[in-house]
């Protein structure tokens, strides 16, 4: 009896090991796309939601034409846990590619993690479209070592040099409004950037650019990304006489800063990047104190960049109850990046699909026109082109509980050119700023 039990136990254990140790014998007619990101956070959820929308749209039409057969898309979710551990992120990527046998990967958020995940993907020669990290290094690697890094493409956002350029334009717009309305002769700017790798080049660039814009820098503050009290910084900023606070935040400090600045009614307009302020939950998270905070964003309710914007944004809102964040551009990465390239290449072979992706631009997407840059020597960067007619992003502002688009609104990037997206509204100055300077 005991011997029989032992034998059956061994057989059972072996069966369990076989089923657990081997990947499922998947049907050959699926294309596996890995979606990797911090899945317990808004950014990862955006990755997944956007990818799901793309998958459903494609599969509803019968799938992807790969040569002479149709293949459906299957998504594989991978939690990178990149906020806490880069090692977890690389392990997740490794598992996605080796165990789950993903054919393509989209996602990633933190630059530090994506740099590491990129190497794993390149080791496996799999196409990886980054949908969250902004550091230029991700794409300069492509030009420096094309044979190794050619499988990487930037999906969103455009790199941090363009991010800061857009922010400067938005900051200049706000400064212009303050100057005009409040009669301020020279705008003073306080730079507040969380202490993270991605923000470092932006701080340096800002310090160089402010004098060129006719503005004065009054100080740089670098709180921790998870700071829960920034009253010290706010006191110092107020004492400095800043009219504008240029923010560079991607983590929770964005909420803390906005809330405390709003509660203390710091008489300076916040503009820049505040990733938390892009979320609809920001209003509740700041207990309503985040009013008048302006940030860069990719999408906004009611703002249309082109005819593709509204169907995507409204479809996302109808399905998920909130406006998509920029990480949801996994939708574009899959629907308009990977899939057309596969169909053009007629194959899932990474090298062929890379060539097809390079040849497949420019193409229209809900956030603008996607095209790829080359470096000074003409080598491909696989980095996104920025500018009117391509991708510009939006400037959004919290106005009385609503996140509305305020830029570009009569933006004149060049002589004779004016850009206004459908649905933008005028920028509002906080009443306490008006009160202080009207006196």
């Amino acid at each position, binding site marked *: 009896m005991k011997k029989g039990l032992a034998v059956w136990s061994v057989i059972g254990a072996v069966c369990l090991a076989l089923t657990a140790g081997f990947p499922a014998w998947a049907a050959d007619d699926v294309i596996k796309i890995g979606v990797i990101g*911090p899945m*317990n*956070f*808004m950014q990862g*959820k955006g990755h997944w939601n956007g990818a799901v929308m793309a998958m459903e749209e494609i599969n509803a039409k019968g799938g992807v034409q790969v040569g002479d057969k149709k293949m459906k898309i299957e998504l594989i979710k991978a939690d990178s846990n990149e*906020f*806490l551990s880069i090692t977890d992120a690389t392990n997740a990527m490794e598992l996605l590619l080796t165990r789950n046998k993903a054919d393509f990967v989209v996602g990633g958020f933190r630059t530090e993690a994506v740099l590491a995940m990129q190497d794993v993907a390149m080791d496996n020669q799999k196409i990886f479209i980054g949908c969250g990290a902004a550091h230029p290094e991700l794409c300069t690697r492509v030009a420096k070592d094309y044979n190794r890094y050619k499988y990487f493409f930037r999906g969103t956002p455009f790199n941090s040099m363009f991010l800061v350029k857009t922010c400067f334009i938005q900051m200049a717009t706000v400064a212009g409004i303050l100057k005009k309305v409040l009669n301020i002769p020279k705008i003073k700017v306080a730079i507040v950037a969380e*202490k993270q790798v991605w923000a470092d080049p932006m701080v340096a660039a800002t310090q160089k650019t402010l004098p060129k814009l006719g503005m004065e820098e009054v*100080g*740089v*503050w*670098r*709180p*921790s*990304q*998870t*700071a*829960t*009290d920034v*009253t*010290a*910084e*706010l*006191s*110092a900023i*107020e004492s400095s006489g800043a009219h504008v606070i240029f923010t560079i935040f991607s983590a*929770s400090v964005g*909420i*803390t800063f906005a*809330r*405390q600045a709003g*509660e*203390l009614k710091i008489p300076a307009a916040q503009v820049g990047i505040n990733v*938390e302020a892009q*979320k609809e*939950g920001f209003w*509740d*998270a*700041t*207990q309503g104190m985040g009013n008048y905070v302006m940030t860069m964003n990719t999408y906004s309710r009611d703002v249309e960049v082109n005819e593709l914007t509204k169907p995507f944004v409204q479809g996302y809102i109808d399905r998920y109850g909130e406006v998509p964040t920029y990480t949801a551009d996994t939708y574009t990465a899959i629907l308009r990046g990977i899939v057309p390239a596969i169909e053009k290449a007629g194959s899932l072979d990474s090298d062929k699909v890379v060539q097809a992706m390079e040849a497949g631009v420019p193409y229209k997407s809900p956030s603008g026109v996607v095209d790829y840059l080359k470096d000074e020597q003409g080598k491909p960067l696989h980095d996104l082109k920025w500018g009117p007619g391509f991708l510009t992003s939006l400037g959004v502002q919290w106005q009385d509980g609503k996140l509305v688009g305020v830029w570009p609104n009569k933006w004149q990037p060049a002589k004779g050119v004016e850009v206004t997206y459908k649905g933008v509204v005028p920028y509002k100055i906080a009443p306490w700023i008006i009160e202080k300077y009207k006196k």
Partner: protein
Amino acid sequence: MILDIIITGLISGSVYALLAIGFSLIFGVARIVNIAHTAFYMLAAYCIFFVTQKAGLHPVWGMLAAFVSVTFLGLLAYKLFIDPIREHEGAVLIGTIALAIAMQEFMLLLFSGDYVSVPSLIKGYFAISGVKVFYQQLLTFAMVLVILFALWVLLMKTRLGLAIRSTAEDREVANLMGMNDSRVAMTAMGVSVGLAAITGAVIAPLTILSPFMWTHPLIMVMAVVVLGGMGSIKGSFAGAYILGFAEALVVFLIPQGAFLKGSVALSIMILVLLIRPEGLFGIAFEEER
């Protein structure tokens, strides 16, 4: 600036004092290094969030609910997970780490990793010599002082406090004197977790909530306890304010280096330990117990 430093230092120091005293108490009485201590603080904060933002009740109800439920949870965790392995210090350390991570992951599942906040009990601010201070900060500081006073009364003026202090001083002798050290340890655990819960309750309106919010205070609490002397409540109190003010000084004097405040505080701890390894009020030799 001096006033800013004083206010910020007092608030931070008070928070660390509340947490560190609870941590020190359970170590002193039962030799339990409870890594999950600040995870209970995180649970309390989320309890208030749930009661105020989801159930729509007043924050005071949230604080009461947080204190009662988290203390109960702490006692349950002690009885089920810690008490059976209490004699094995290594196992307790690992067990409490696992408990903390489990609580974190559970909150992550329930509330996701998105940052949330709770409303202040008193909105607005006032100015002292041009320095703006939130009413909530003042209220928090006042509540902390009241709690510390209540703790002092408990420990110094009650029989229970006498039993706790005796057991902390010498467990064997306390046992011989008729004090049930197991029951005292459980009571100390209740007081310790209660302190963590109250800290979560009073600090929640001033901070951003996330399932990972327990990790930074844990590092600071351990630094405070080591600086003050393991098992010394007086030491924890002093250490908390030393490190609280150290953090405030860094934030105000080095704006670009504000992110270094934790590192500077820990460096001070290391410096003190190099000079006095047992901590400021710790006991140099175990035999002195």
